[in-house]
């Protein structure tokens, strides 16, 4: 080899090395391209599901005291708004957790508005009637003076939901707002009745402690609904509330759950072999652990049994699934036939007449229970029944099944009657829960890692539906799909928060690369002005909204 040739080769090698090292130093060319993100592999809300969510959000934000759409034929002493509120909020919590974890403001606003509604006097003041108790159920010889504080003693039908919703909110959003003094405040201003103005203030922990103590004091049977009446189904919301509370606060209130189940089995209130249970246990007036008397044992998915199963699935999965099906699947088949054949609408209970609405609630609780345990066959049949008979409506982008008191049954078993709890909430809950949604909500709790992930905000909910909002940690990519909302708009904006300013993001819109976001570098291609880094480190995105628009913000690795 000539020396000239050697020099040339050396020069080439050196130049290559230099160029190569420069390439490594350049962030634009050194980083590995982002991993491919296929939107169809991620959860997505359908048009109907978005309609259900819109309806639940609207019900949450009605003005205080406006109960339009909540009115039920089921005239339980406390009425049923509190249950619609609570189940509505938990449906939104499920959707938040399962479908759009990276889009929170809509869900959080509604869940917290529902919690506010639980503190409205229309909801809690009726407790005063129930607290007086009386001769029904053989508890007393006459009504008592009663008490006003809705949390202090009994009334698990309210306080369980404060615990469940408050703890879910704290788990989802990492904010301890319900730990503040007076987080739950009940102000009795009664003019026609009462011994003067009085306020009751509780924190979330006060409520958790109170319920826990009542469970312990009852010999692990539970906290009473009305005085001296302990219902299995009423324990379920507070039981799962303990799970979230413990996750957020590091406490161990949920340790009572297996003890409660054991107590019910040992005392014969649950037959764990046949999956029969006593819907209610009567107790002594002065001591909830004394003189406990169960009613007749019935299948756990009959009547309102689903009320418990929907939530207890989170901490007692195998048993709850087994109880849903019953021995050899018998109980599930009987219940499903009962609700599909119209038999449920033929069986009003004389004691509470008119009570058809109660049977519609049982219908709704069963479909929500079937959804949670993953019985898609039953859910699909029941949803088809609802579509055929319950006259669903679209209204301002909301989708729901309006109340109907027509519980007549035709020769084919079709009945059109719907209670609002079922039509507003429970069918939506069943539709959104693809199986184990509540199990996931309680067993895959969010924490600091989720709170720090990228998400979107400042979405105009009138013009925009968010059908996908998911941050994929493995691919370091944020996926967002926007769809037109009920109010037409040509262009909309949203904000992307918590992108890492040290990373470069490739942005695709409907699978086409529209730009790159590089906080550190100058002269970014930011999608021809459709994306803009702002001083506060967030990114403002502008887009047309005539059709669904899917964005992916993928970090280079």
């Amino acid at each position, binding site marked *: 080899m000539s020396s000239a040739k050697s020099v040339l080769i050396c020069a080439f090698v050196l130049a290559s090395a230099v160029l190569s090292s420069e390439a490594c130093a350049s962030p634009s060319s050194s980083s590995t391209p982002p991993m491919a993100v296929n939107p169809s592999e991620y959860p997505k809300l359908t048009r109907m599901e978005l309609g259900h969510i819109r309806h639940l959000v609207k019900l949450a934000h009605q003005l205080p005291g406006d109960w339009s759409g909540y009115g039920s034929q089921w005239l339980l002493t406390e009425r049923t708004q509190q249950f619609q509120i609570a189940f509505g909020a938990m449906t939104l919590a499920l959707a938040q957790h399962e479908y759009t974890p990276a889009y929170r403001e809509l869900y959080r606003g509604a869940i917290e508005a529902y919690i506010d509604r639980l503190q409205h006097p229309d909801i809690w003041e009726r407790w005063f009637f129930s607290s007086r108790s009386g001769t029904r159920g053989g508890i007393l010889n006459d009504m008592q003076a009663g008490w006003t*504080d809705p949390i202090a003693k009994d009334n698990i039908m309210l306080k369980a939901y404060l615990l469940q919703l408050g703890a879910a909110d704290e788990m989802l959003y990492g904010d301890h707002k319900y730990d503040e003094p007076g987080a739950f405040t009940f102000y009795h201003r009664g003019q026609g009745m009462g011994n003067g*103005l009085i306020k*009751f203030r*509780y924190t979330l922990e006060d409520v958790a402690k109170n319920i826990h103590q009542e469970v312990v004091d009852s010999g692990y049977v539970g906290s009473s609904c009305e005085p001296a009446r302990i219902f299995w189904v009423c324990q379920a919301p507070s039981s799962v509330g303990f799970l979230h509370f413990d996750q957020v606060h590091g406490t161990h209130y949920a340790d009572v759950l297996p003890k409660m189940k054991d107590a019910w089995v040992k005392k014969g209130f649950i037959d764990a072999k046949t999956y029969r249970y006593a819907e209610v246990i009567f107790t002594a007036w002065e001591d909830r652990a004394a003189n406990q008397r169960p009613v007749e044992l019935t299948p756990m998915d009959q009547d309102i049994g689903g009320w418990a199963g929907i939530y207890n699935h989170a901490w007692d999965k195998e048993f709850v699934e087994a109880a849903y099906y019953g021995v050899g699947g018998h109980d599930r088949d009987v219940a499903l036939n009962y609700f599909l054949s119209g038999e449920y609408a033929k069986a009003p209970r004389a004691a509470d007449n008119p009570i058809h609405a109660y049977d519609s609630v049982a219908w709704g609780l069963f479909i929500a229970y079937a959804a949670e345990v993953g019985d898609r066959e039953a859910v699909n049949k029941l949803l088809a029944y609802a579509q055929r008979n319950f006259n669903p409506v679209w209204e301002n982008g909301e989708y729901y099944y309006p109340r109907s008191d027509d519980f007549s049954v035709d020769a084919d078993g079709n009945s059109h009657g719907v209670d609002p709890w079922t039509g507003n909430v429970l069918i939506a809950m069943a539709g959104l829960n693809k199986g184990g949604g509540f199990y996931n909500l309680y067993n895959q709790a969010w924490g600091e890692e989720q709170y720090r992930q990228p998400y979107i905000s400042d979405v105009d909910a009138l013009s925009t539906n968010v059908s996908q909002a998911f941050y994929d940690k493995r691919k370091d990519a944020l996926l967002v799909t926007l769809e037109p909302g009920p109010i037409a708009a040509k262009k909309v904006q949203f904000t992307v928060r918590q992108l890492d300013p040290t990373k470069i993001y490739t942005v695709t819109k409907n699978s086409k690369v529209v730009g790159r976001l590089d906080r550190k570098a100058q002269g970014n291609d930011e999608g021809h002005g459709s994306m803009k880094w702002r001083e506060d480190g967030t990114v403002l995105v502008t887009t047309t909204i005539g059709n669904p628009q899917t964005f992916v913000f993928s970090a280079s690795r």
Partner: protein
Amino acid sequence: MRSYDSVLIALSVCLLLTPLSAQAQEVSGEKVSIEITSCVVYSVKHPANTYDCIAEAKKALGTCNEAQSCEIPIGYNLTSGKDLDPGSGFLGKQVKITYKCGTDSMQGGPYQQDDHASLVLDCSGMWW
């Protein structure tokens, strides 16, 4: 007969104007302060078992800086943290506070002694 009618009319007018005068005081800016005249915690089963809580109630009132409406916590703060009737539970003890708004006598309670409850004593004139 005529003088009897006049007395009756005058009496009726007085009765009608009594609450209005209190509201008029408020409207005119004349402040009507709260004066606690009694506070008692008592056992429901053993009514003779009582605790005079006027000192504790007045102490709580003092934190309101002479406001016309004041919240008085009615929990165990009123009995120096002691349970007047141990074992009687939430329903076992009650609290009653009497107070004056100017010359008008008012009463808050009885309500259960409750660490989460506050009686709102109110002299703002909206006491109907």
